[in-house]
């Protein structure tokens, strides 16, 4: 503490040094004059008194110097002078300085950006007060439970406060004569008060309120044009009037994490709503105490209202809402692995950048070896010189980090304004934060050490006498440190480039992959109804709407077929895992299969071939015989070579009716394009208990895009309060292609970045070696070497470096890329020969290009000038 205080005073002194010195001079003058006056009073003449006082004081200069000395800190002053000297040296050689800073800026910019995306996607801290005391609660192993259960737990008062939210809701907003759909979060009325979320405008939904709404920043900006008078405005949502109470800030991160951000928040209104539970831990309790208390509350509830088939006390979970707690529970391993891989890849990019800087510094150090030798022989200590060289690399690193952070801020801005083409409200809030600052700081220190240490040590290891005697003679060794560095750099960049190419190839493969159904002649129309308007026990209103809609769509000219479905392939996921029994064998088989409910003509619309039997007809309904259509893989897995049509399947639960298989269809893709072939079971749409979401799929003869408008208009006329979105199926692959696209964009750009950096490194080494060999080249030319001979020398060196780097790199890539198989579409292997061939081609071209500049330089060598050096 004392040390810090003193350091602070010293720094303040350093800052106001000149003022301090003039004040000290004043003080000393005052001292001498006071003494003179005293002497004068005792009768001495004015002149004698002054002279006497001055004599008594002694050397004023020495006193001033000693006084300043009290404040000085040697190491700090040395650091400043080192940095000043380094800055001068960099200014003298701007090409070197700019290249080094540019390389580091790219490396650090890429690193911090990826780090930023990773932390905000995987570890985002929800925007609320004291997120550390906030926990999420799972009842009976379910992530969401009923509002009634929520109220029971809340009233048990075992927590400091509770909050419930469902982020997977949608609402229709009636805007004049148009209807638009919002992604909504419905919340309990204590949600905002428990979480204490900061607001941009207004406030949250208050306890007891049933008709207030909160808008996200993005909706406020893009839909309401950032209207400053938005508070109090009335919105018709789901046919009801809501008043806008508040707008969330731009950097709001929802408690659900992973970038999920509803566009509108409304109070929960239906008793059947399912909610995720959050609670504040009371002070002095921990997770396990809370879990015990919660379990006893659930046990009580189980006694009052038992659940059929499961208990609320099973698998009760209480866990934190930040950091690894969320990650462990919610994230699929492949996503985490993808981010881990990205971090490794950008780490490699930074490594290449640091190697570049180190190699530049090495070149400089050896061309300055004469100067360093003189300084050493004049008595500078080796430590001082190492420190001085390190100050230079520290300065480069700091400047590189500043430029890198600027790149990072620009990238963050782009990412923030990105709308991902996915059917979930996903938005990453990528903001620089303290983690990023620490990360960048660590990178700067590490890169300063990495870049500077090697050249600095090499510079002082040389024998002073040698260095003084021979001026920059070429060393006989073919492989100096720089050569090894460049070859290593090339090897690493080959791994990066091969990875990048592999993912680009993966994307190409994914886009051209046949999903097993026709996306080129089909259009998808989503009709979101306001649920309250269709609440009759038999769903007669909704059924008649569906039938009218299908009738009218089929009557449109150019429409070949149309069907209703519950889920649209590659856009929604429904997986059932259960034990099944067929009527050909008594054993239960565990099966995990895709499920969907589809209407008549579904398979005809999507051109999915029916291999056996038939597809559903209008006669397949709730009250008719239970039937199912299965895909090939399902048939093969459960029935082997037997034709399953006419046989039945049943689940292990005795209450479930056995289903008769009426058809077998060809396999297709269900959720992602890269998925391995899945089992699938289709059931009739009209056998659903309560149809809710209306997805129409329509087959057209011409281009489907032209049908979007007539179909939207047609459906809008049926119910003006419904939100309708129609788009060609080929435009609805955003979610399915997202992983491949993200992989191709991120890794492709990292590969390109690595290549650019490695090319700079190669170019630098070649150019440097030409400049060191000018005399040799001149001699060769004087002895009759042709320009062709000279070029051969240069290109040979480039090829040797490239060849050895490539050999090592390809070998490395073969092993290092093995684990990437996890992310690839089926049929694509990590030993992708196309990718490797492309890499070899690109690198050969780069080697050639990088050698061009140095070769031109070598050709310009004038033997007369070169030899005059001797």
């Amino acid at each position, binding site marked *: 503490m004392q040390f810090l205080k003193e350091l602070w005073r010293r720094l303040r002194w350093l800052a106001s040094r000149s003022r301090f010195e003039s004040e000290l001079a004043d003080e000393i003058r*005052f001292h001498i004059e006071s003494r003179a006056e005293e002497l004068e009073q005792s009768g001495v003449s004015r002149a004698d008194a002054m002279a006497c006082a001055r004599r008594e004081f*002694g050397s004023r200069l020495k006193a001033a110097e000693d006084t300043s000395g*009290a404040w000085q800190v040697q190491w700090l002053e040395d650091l400043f002078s080192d940095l000043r000297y380094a800055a001068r040296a960099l200014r003298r050689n701007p090409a070197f300085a700019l290249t080094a800073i540019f390389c580091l800026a790219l490396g650090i910019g890429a690193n911090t950006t990826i780090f930023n995306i990773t932390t905000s996607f995987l570890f985002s801290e929800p925007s609320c007060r004291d997120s550390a005391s906030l926990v999420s609660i799972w009842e009976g192993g379910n992530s969401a439970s009923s509002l009634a259960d929520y109220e029971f737990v809340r009233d048990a008062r075992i927590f400091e406060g509770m909050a419930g939210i469902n982020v997977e809701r949608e609402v229709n907003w009636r805007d004049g004569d148009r209807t638009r759909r919002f992604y909504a979060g419905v919340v309990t009325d204590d949600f905002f008060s428990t979480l204490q979320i900061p607001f941009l405008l207004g406030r949250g939904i208050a306890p007891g309120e049933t008709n207030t709404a909160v808008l996200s920043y993005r909706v406020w900006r893009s839909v309401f044009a950032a209207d400053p008078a938005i508070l109090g405005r009335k919105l018709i949502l789901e046919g009801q009037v809501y008043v806008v109470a508040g707008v969330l800030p731009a950097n709001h991160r929802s408690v659900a994490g992973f970038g999920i951000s509803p566009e509108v928040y409304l109070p929960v209104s239906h008793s059947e709503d399912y909610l995720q539970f959050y609670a504040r831990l009371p002070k002095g309790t921990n997770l396990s105490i809370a879990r015990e208390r919660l379990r006893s509350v659930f046990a009580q509830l189980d006694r009052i209202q038992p659940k059929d088939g499961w208990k609320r006390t099973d698998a009760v979970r209480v866990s934190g809402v930040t950091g690894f707690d969320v990650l462990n529970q919610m994230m699929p391993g492949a996503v985490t692995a993808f981010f881990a891989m990205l971090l490794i890849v950008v780490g490699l990019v930074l490594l290449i950048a640091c190697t570049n800087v180190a190699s530049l510094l090495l070149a400089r150090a050896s061309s300055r070896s004469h100067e360093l030798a003189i300084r050493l022989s004049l008595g500078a200590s080796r430590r001082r010189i190492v420190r001085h060289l390190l100050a230079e690399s520290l300065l480069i690193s700091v400047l590189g980090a500043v430029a890198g952070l600027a790149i990072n801020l620009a990238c963050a801005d782009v990412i923030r304004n990105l709308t991902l083409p996915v059917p979930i409200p996903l938005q990453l809030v990528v903001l620089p934060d303290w983690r990023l600052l620490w990360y960048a700081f660590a990178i700067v220190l590490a890169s300063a050490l990495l870049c500077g240490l090697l050249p600095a040590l090499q510079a002082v290891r040389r024998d002073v006498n040698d260095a003084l005697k021979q001026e920059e003679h070429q060393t006989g060794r073919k492989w100096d440190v720089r050569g090894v560095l460049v070859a290593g750099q090339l090897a690493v960049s080959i791994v990066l480039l091969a990875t990048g190419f592999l993912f680009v190839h993966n994307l190409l493969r994914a886009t051209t992959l046949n999903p097993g159904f026709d996306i080129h002649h089909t259009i998808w129309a989503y009709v979101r109804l306001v649920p309250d308007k269709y609440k009759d026990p038999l769903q007669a209103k909704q059924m008649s709407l569906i039938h009218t809609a299908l009738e009218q769509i089929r009557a449109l000219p150019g429409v070949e077929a149309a069907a209703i479905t519950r889920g649209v392939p590659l856009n929604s996921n429904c997986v059932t895992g259960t034990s099944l029994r067929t009527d050909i064998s008594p054993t239960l088989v565990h099966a995990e299969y895709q499920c969907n409910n589809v209407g008549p003509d579904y398979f005809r619309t999507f051109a999915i071939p029916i291999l056996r039997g038939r597809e559903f007809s209008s006669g397949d309904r709730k009250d008719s015989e239970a039937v199912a259509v299965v895909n090939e893989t399902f048939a093969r897995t459960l029935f082997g070579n037997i034709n399953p049509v006419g046989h039945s399947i049943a689940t292990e639960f005795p209450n479930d009716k056995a289903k008769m298989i009426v058809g077998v269809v060809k396999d297709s893709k269900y959720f992602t394009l890269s998925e391995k072939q899945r089992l699938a079971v289709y059931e009739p749409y009209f056998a659903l208990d309560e149809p809710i979401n209306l997805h129409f799929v329509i087959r057209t003869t011409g281009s489907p895009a032209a049908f979007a408008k007539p179909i939207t208009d047609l459906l809008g006329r049926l119910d003006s309060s419904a939100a309708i979105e129609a788009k060609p199926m080929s435009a609805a692959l955003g979610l399915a292609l997202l992983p491949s696209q993200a992989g191709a964009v991120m890794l492709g750009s990292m590969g390109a970045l690595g290549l650019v950096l490695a090319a700079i490194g190669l170019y630098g080494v070649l150019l440097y070696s030409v400049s060191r060999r000018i005399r040799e080249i001149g001699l060769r030319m004087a002895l009759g070497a042709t320009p062709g001979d000279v070029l051969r020398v240069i290109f040979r060196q480039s090829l040797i470096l490239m060849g050895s780097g490539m050999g090592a790199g390809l070998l490395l890539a073969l092993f290092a890329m093995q684990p990437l198989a996890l992310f690839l579409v089926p049929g694509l292997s990590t030993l992708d020969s196309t990718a490797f061939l492309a890499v070899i081609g690109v690198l050969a071209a780069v080697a050639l290009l990088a050698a061009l500049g140095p070769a031109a330089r070598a050709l310009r060598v004038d033997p007369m000038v070169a030899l005059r050096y001797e």
Partner: protein
Amino acid sequence: MPEESPQLLPGTLYMLVLRTLAAGPLHGYAIARRIKQCSANVLDVEEGSLYPSLNRMLLKGWLKAEWGTSETNRKARFYRLTKEGQKQLASEADEFERLITAIQLVMKTA
């Protein structure tokens, strides 16, 4: 010729300055004069070492310096004792007391 003033014991200059300032803020010249007067002209603080030690004490935080007007109505730099300075004075005086007692004990009995 007056007798040469004896050399200050090493390390005692801080204590003397602190003690002089305990009565109230003084400028550099007044500190030197006060020490001389109080010691009946025996102790003469060398100007060449007064200002460096004053600055070392500023650095340690024992003193604060402010510009003010002197008794002769001139601009002068006044030094004032801080809380830390008072603590330092107490501990140094205490230690010095014990040292002197011990030395006297030796001188009288040995």
